[in-house]
């Protein structure tokens, strides 16, 4: 049966876990993933074949293997790292492989004439990327990056595998102690929604702002 008392009691506990763990991991991992993803995408295009092929293989490998496995492997392989650090690194690297695909699509959507104009002006490759290609490509990529960040956010409960006390773990604990899971799990679900939805809206706004 629904217990209002339990519902209210669980809110501050879960909110704390949400702010201290879930949100921190999501934000830091998203930044890491967005930066690494960009590096991979540019690397795949600019590196000579003998270097691009192994990079592609590693990225495919990471993308096609489960996140909890990565968490456990890295957690036990590097036992000097805190669980939080492992969480941020693994989430960041795992999602960077997805984001690299998004960047790639964004880069491929740039018309060939843009590259040719840059060549005709003798712009060096670094400047072509920075001033011509990326400003256009990232604008096309942004909605997709936002979706991956939200997907990552929803994956944070996997942190339970390396005993990081994130929000859903806390909700389960709380439910176990009080012999009722509905209230605390509802709070956790609502918090996910409350955070995801404005993020999605924000991404859409940002996208509009970057239009020219």
């Amino acid at each position, binding site marked *: 049966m629904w217990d209002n008392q339990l519902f209210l009691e669980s809110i501050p506990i879960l909110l704390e876990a949400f702010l201290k763990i879930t949100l921190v991991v999501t934000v830091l991992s998203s930044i890491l993933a967005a930066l690494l993803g960009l590096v991979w995408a540019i690397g795949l295009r600019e590196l000579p074949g003998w270097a691009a092929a192994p990079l592609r293989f590693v990225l495919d490998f990471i993308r096609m293997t489960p996140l909890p496995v990565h968490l456990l492997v890295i957690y036990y392989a590097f036992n000097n790292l805190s669980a939080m650090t492992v969480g941020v690194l693994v989430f960041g690297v795992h999602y960077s492989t997805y984001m690299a695909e998004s960047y790639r699509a964004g880069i491929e959507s740039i018309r060939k004439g843009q590259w*040719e*104009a840059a060549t*005709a002006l*003798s*712009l*060096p490759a670094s*400047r072509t990327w920075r*001033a011509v290609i990326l*400003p256009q490509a990232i*604008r096309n990529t942004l909605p997709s990056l936002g979706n991956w960040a939200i997907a990552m956010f929803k994956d944070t409960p996997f942190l339970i595998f390396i005993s990081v006390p994130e929000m859903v773990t806390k909700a389960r604990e709380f439910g176990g102690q009080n012999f009722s899971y509905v209230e605390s799990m509802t709070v956790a679900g609502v918090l996910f929604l409350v955070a995801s939805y404005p993020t999605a809206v924000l991404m859409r706004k940002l996208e509009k702002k970057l239009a020219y």
Partner: protein
Amino acid sequence: MPTDQTPDTPAQGNGGVPRVQFEDVVKRFGSTTVLDNLNFTVGHGERVTLIGPSGSGKTTILRLLMTLEHLTDGYIWVDGDPLTHARQDGKRVELRSKQIAQVRKRIGMVFQQFNLFPNMTVVDNVIEAPIHVLGQSKEQARENALSLLDKVGLSHRVDAHPSQLSGGQQQRVAIARAMAMDPEILLLDEVTSALDPELVGDVLAVLKDVAASTDITMLIVTHEMQFARDVSDRVMMFDSGHIIEEGHPDKIFSDPDHERTQKFLQAVI
């Protein structure tokens, strides 16, 4: 002096080193041979118009010169300097991209589809390369850009984005952008073909002005025969990658020797 060796620089005829020389140029796309041992030269300040049926290789020639296509065989020389491939001890060697960039800087191109950078304003399109390639200061580049944009009649739109301009205006910005690099050679590939008919005149007027006020060497591909007649010193008629006839525009346009040229001109005029 040994005479049985191929020199590392192109053969010089009378009149010194040509501005552009195509030497035994071969271009294949897969198994399709588009250019098969093409040879021609363009003199300093000369304006040459390339005409010929669709698929005869005109665009390919300009794109090879702009290094947008890979040269299958042969050499292209610019002022006697190798563009993408050099002859070293009789062997053909590909240059490194840094070396290629040095010669490429002397060449500018205006494209059929304008290819302005949509993320930059008009003036930023024009100053981008002078700052980051020629190393001009921002002030210097901007001053020069504003004067060029004035010449092409766009001083009132310097802070607009390309998407806010008509095709004709965009193409005039593209001309200013190419001119800002102070090129020795300007390549124009059907620069009015994508424009609404009423916008063609302004663009051609700008180009005539460039032709009249500079001594830039020009290679022009166009279907605007009157324009070709007005600005060019020589017309080259291409068919299947070969020059079948060339000469002064008055001769080629009014009294061509070749039947194919006659047929082609009848079809386009």
